C-alpha cells in the first residue's frame, strides 16, 4: 500500500472535520468494545455452582440488581449497564475459558469481580486473557496482595483489603487483647495463607501451633480430628482460622464435637455467617463469641445509610434473596463501577476507566469504613478492618457498639486506628 503525503494531509483535514463534528455529539461511543451510545456491557466469572458456590453465588445477582436500579434511574451518561455472568465453579481453567468467552464472544467492555486468587491470577496473569486482550478487570474479589502491583497487573483493580493487611490487623488485636495467651492458627496452604503468614510475620506475631491445610479445601466436607488434637495438644487458647468458609464450617463443627472451645478469630473470607448457615453443616450459633473482621458495615446494620439503601435495592431488584455480606460485596462492586463509568466520561474506553479509578477512585462513595487506596501509582482498594464479635444468629457486631477501624498497608506500615471519614451516600444511591 502506498500513501502519498499530499493524500495524508487531505485525509488529516477530513479527519479533523469529522472530529470536530463528533465533539458536539453527546455520549458518542469511541468504538470501544462493549460500549454503545446506550449501553455498556460488563462480564463476570465466579462460582454459581459447585463446592465453593454457597454465598458467593449471590454476588452476580447483587451486581445486576444495582445495575437495574441505576438503569431505571437513567443509566450513566445515557448508557444502561448490563452484566453477563458465567459460572466457573471456582476452577481456574474454567474461569479462563469463561473470561475468553466474555471477551471474545460476549464482547464485554470490562471484567468485574473475578473471584478467588487462583482464578483471578489465571485471568490477569502474563498469559491470561485479560492481559492478552488488554481488558480491565475491576474490583477483583480476592485479597491477594499481589494484585495491587500496578506494574505487574496494570489493568487489575482490587477492592478488598489484602490478606496481609487483615493479618496485621488480627495480629495487633491479639497483642492488645490476648497478651500472654497461647496462639494457634489454621490456614490455607496457598497464596491466600501465604499472604496471611506474611502479615503476621510483619506484625511480629508468632504462633505456638500451626495447622496448614491443602487448598483443595473448597471441597472439604470434614476436618480431621488431628487438626483439633494438634491445637489442643499445643495448648492453643486463641485460634485464628484463616481459611475459606467450607473449611471454617468444618473446623467449628469438629471442634464442637471434640469439646474444644478456644477463642476463635475468623478471618473475613471464611467467617461469612450466611455462607456457613447455607451449608447446613453446623448451626450458626457455633460462631457465637468468635471474633470476626469486616471492612464494610455489618449487613445487619440497617441504620447505616449504605446498608439501608442496598437493602432497599435488594428488596426490589433481587427479591427473595436474603441480604448478607455477599449482597453488600456485589452491590459495592456495582456501585463503584457505576462511579468509575461516570468519572471516565462520555468517551468511555478501557484505558479511560482505569485512568478514572486511578485519578478519583479513592473518593468514590462506598460502604467501606476504611479508606480506598487508589492513585496513579496504586491499585489498592480498601485498606483496613474493624473487629467484632459474632452473636448467636451469626451477626457480626462491632465491639463496644462502634466501628473501630484499623488501617495499614501490605508492607511494613504500622496498624493504626483510622480517622477516615467515609463519603456520604449520594442522593438516591446514584453516582454524582
Amino acid at each position, binding site marked *: *500500500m*502506498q*500513501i*502519498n*503525503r499530499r493524500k495524508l494531509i487531505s485525509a488529516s483535514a477530513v479527519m479533523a472535520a469529522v472530529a470536530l463534528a463528533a465533539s458536539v455529539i453527546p455520549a458518542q461511543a469511541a468504538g470501544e468494545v462493549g460500549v454503545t451510545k446506550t449501553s455498556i456491557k460488563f462480564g463476570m466469572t465466579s462460582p454459581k*455452582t*459447585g*463446592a*465453593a458456590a454457597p454465598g458467593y453465588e449471590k454476588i452476580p445477582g447483587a451486581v445486576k440488581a444495582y445495575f437495574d436500579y441505576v438503569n431505571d434511574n437513567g443509566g450513566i451518561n445515557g448508557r444502561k449497564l448490563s452484566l453477563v455472568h458465567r459460572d466457573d*465453579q*471456582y*476452577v*481456574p*481453567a*474454567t474461569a479462563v*475459558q469463561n473470561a475468553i*468467552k466474555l471477551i*471474545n464472544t460476549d464482547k464485554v467492555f470490562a471484567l468485574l469481580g473475578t473471584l478467588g*486468587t*487462583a482464578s483471578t*491470577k*489465571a485471568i490477569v*496473569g*502474563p*498469559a491470561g486473557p485479560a492481559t*492478552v*486482550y488488554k481488558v480491565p478487570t475491576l474490583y477483583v474479589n480476592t485479597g491477594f496482595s499481589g494484585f495491587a502491583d500496578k506494574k505487574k497487573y496494570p489493568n487489575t483493580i482490587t477492592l478488598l483489603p489484602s490478606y496481609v493487611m487483615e493479618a496485621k490487623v488480627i495480629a495487633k488485636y491479639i497483642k492488645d487483647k490476648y497478651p500472654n495467651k497461647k496462639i494457634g492458627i489454621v490456614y*490455607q*496452604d*496457598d*497464596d491466600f*495463607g*501465604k499472604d496471611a503468614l506474611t502479615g503476621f510475620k510483619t506484625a511480629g506475631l508468632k504462633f505456638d501451633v500451626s495447622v*496448614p*491445610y*491443602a*487448598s*483443595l479445601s*473448597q*471441597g472439604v466436607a470434614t476436618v480431621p480430628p488431628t487438626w483439633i488434637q494438634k491445637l489442643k495438644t499445643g495448648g492453643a487458647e486463641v485460634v485464628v482460622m484463616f481459611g475459606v468458609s467450607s473449611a471454617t464450617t468444618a473446623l467449628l463443627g469438629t471442634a464442637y464435637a471434640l469439646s474444644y472451645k478456644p477463642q476463635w478469630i475468623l478471618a473475613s473470607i471464611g467467617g461469612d455467617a450466611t455462607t456457613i448457615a447455607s451449608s447446613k453443616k453446623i448451626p450458626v450459633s457455633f460462631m457465637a463469641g468468635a471474633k470476626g473482621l469486616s471492612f464494610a458495615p455489618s449487613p445487619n446494620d440497617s441504620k447505616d445509610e449504605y446498608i439501608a439503601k442496598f437493602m432497599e435495592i435488594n428488596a426490589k431488584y433481587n427479591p427473595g434473596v436474603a441480604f448478607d455480606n455477599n449482597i453488600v460485596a456485589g452491590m459495592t462492586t456495582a456501585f463503584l463501577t457505576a462511579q468509575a463509568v461516570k468519572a471516565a466520561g462520555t468517551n468511555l474506553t478501557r484505558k479511560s476507566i482505569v485512568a478514572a479509578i486511578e485519578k478519583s477512585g479513592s473518593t468514590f462513595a462506598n460502604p467501606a469504613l476504611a479508606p480506598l487506596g487508589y492513585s496513579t501509582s496504586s491499585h489498592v482498594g480498601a485498606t483496613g478492618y474493624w473487629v467484632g464479635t459474632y452473636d448467636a444468629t451469626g451477626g457480626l457486631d462491632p465491639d463496644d457498639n462502634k466501628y473501630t477501624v484499623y488501617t495499614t498497608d501490605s508492607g511494613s506500615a504500622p496498624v493504626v486506628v483510622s480517622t477516615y471519614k467515609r463519603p456520604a451516600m449520594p442522593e438516591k444511591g446514584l453516582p454524582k
Partner: protein
Amino acid sequence: MNSKNIKTRLLSLLSISGLVAGVVVGVPSSAQAADPQCATANFVTSCAGTTSDSALYTMVAPANFNGTVLIWSHGLRPNIDIPAGIPKFGGYTVNKAAEFAPGLSDGDLTTLNALIAKGYGVAGSGFSRQGINVTEAVAANVELIAAFKKQFPTTKKVVAWGGSLGTQITQTLTELHPELVDAAVLGCPATAPGAAMIKYFGDFMWAFKTLFDPSIKGFGYSEGAAGRAEAYLDMQKFFVALSKVSAGTVSGAWPDTSSAAGKALEAAGVPSRSAMTLIALIAGVPLRSEHVDGNASPVGLETAFELGYMPAIAATENGATVGLASILLMQDGETQAGGIVFDNKATDYAALVEEDRDIYSAALGGNTPADAILGVLAASPRVTGSATAMAKVSKLLPITGKINVPTVLLTAESDQFTVAGTAQFLIDSYKVQYAAVKTAAMNASKKSRVYTAPVSKLLPLWEKTAENYTVFSGSSPDLTKPAGRGTGHCLFTSKQWLVAADLAIAAANKGSFGQSGTVATTARKVGLSSDSKFRVPVMRGLQG
C-alpha cells in the same frame, strides 16, 4: 512425530489407493540415478529419485500443473529401531521413505489429492538421515527443488511446508535459501532455537527421573549400540514409572522406583500427582491434553476433581509423549554432537513456576508440598552439559526466527510435543523484525516522500483448545475418545492443512495473505483463528 504408531502408518501408506496411489506405486522404488524415474497414469506424473546423499524423494504433478509446487518436510522419525512393546513406537524400524504431503503417514490421501486436483505439484523427501536431521533435510530439499524445476520446467512458485520437526527444516530452508522459496507453511511448529527445544524435553525428563526413577539414565548415553540399548531400557523404565504415577493419581502413591527423596516426600504426605503436576509446570508441558479439558469432573466429584486431579492426569497423558521424545532426542543429539547437550546447572526451577504454581495450587496440594518438591529438585544433582556438544546441537537445530518469505503458522494451543510457545517465539521475533522494516520504510519515505507500508509476512493461525471435551469412563477420562480440538500433536484436519496451503500460495502469488476479514472467515470455517491478539507463553527456555 505423531502419536499414532509409525509402523502402522507406514503400512497404511503402502496400501493406499486413489488418484495418486496407483501412480506412485507404479514408480520404480529403487531409483539411484541422478535423474528421477517417472511414470504417468491418469494424467498425473509421479517421479521417484534420490539426492546426492541418497535421500529418497517423490515428485508428483498433474497434467494441468499450474506452476506452483509444495515441498513437504516430514516430522521426526526416530533414527534408531524401537523394540516391540514400547508404547507409541514399539516395532518401528528406521525408515527413509519419501513423504510428500501431510496425512500420508496416516494413510490419508485427502490433502494430496485435493492439491493435485487443483493443479498443484507436490514433492517431498524421506531424507538420508532420521532423528535430528535439519542439515541433511535442508540439503535434500535444495536438491529436490532443483530436481522438480528440471523435471517440470513450468514451475514458477515454490511453497515449502512441513510438520513438527519438518517446520524446523522448512524454516531453516527459508532462512538459508530465501531465493528458492516463495512462501511457507509451518504446521505444529518446532520453531524455537535448538537450546530451548532441548531444555523443554530435558527439564521434564530430569525432574521425572529425579523424583520417580533415578535409574533412568536420561542423559549421557554411551556411543553406538550400547547407547541405543540404554535408550531402550530408559523407554521401558519411563513408561513403567509413568504408569505407576497414573495408577497413583487419586491415592497419591508414588512408584516403587521413586528416588529416596521421592519416597521421603511420599512419607511426608506429598501425593505423586502433586509432583507430576509440578514436573509439567517446570518444563511448560500443557495441562490440557487430548482427553483432559481441565473443566470436567465425574459426577459427585465436582470442583475437587478439576482442581486436584485433572492437571496431573493431563500432565501424565502429555508426559508420555514428552518423556519418550526426550529419550530419543537426547540419545540422537548426543550421538551427533559428541556429548551431553542438556545442562541445568543454573536452572532455578522455583523461579520458573513462580506464577503458575498459584494457579495450580490445589493440584500441587498447597505451598508446603510444592516447596518440598522444589526443595528436592534444588538439592538434587544437576546435569552438566558439554559446551562443545551444546554448541553443536544448536547448529543442528539452527533457526534464528527470521521470516524471509510469507509464512503461515499453524498451531494447536495445547500441543504437548512442539508446544505453542515455539510459535509464540516466531511471532514475537517477527514483531521486532517487522518494526525494524517499518521504521526503515518510514525513514525511506522521508527522502522519497512516498510511504509504502510493509506487508506482514507472518500469518499465525491458531487451533484454540476446545472448552469441554473430556468424556468420563467411571471416574477416569476415556482415552479412547477422539482428541479435543486444539490438543495433541499435528492432529490437523486435511481442510486445515489445505486452508494454510491456500493462504501461503496466495501470498506467494500476490504478495499478501489477503484481507484480514477474508482470512479470518476462511480460517474460522475450518476451526482456526487468525486472532492477531492471541498469545501463549513462550517456551520456558526463552522466558526472560
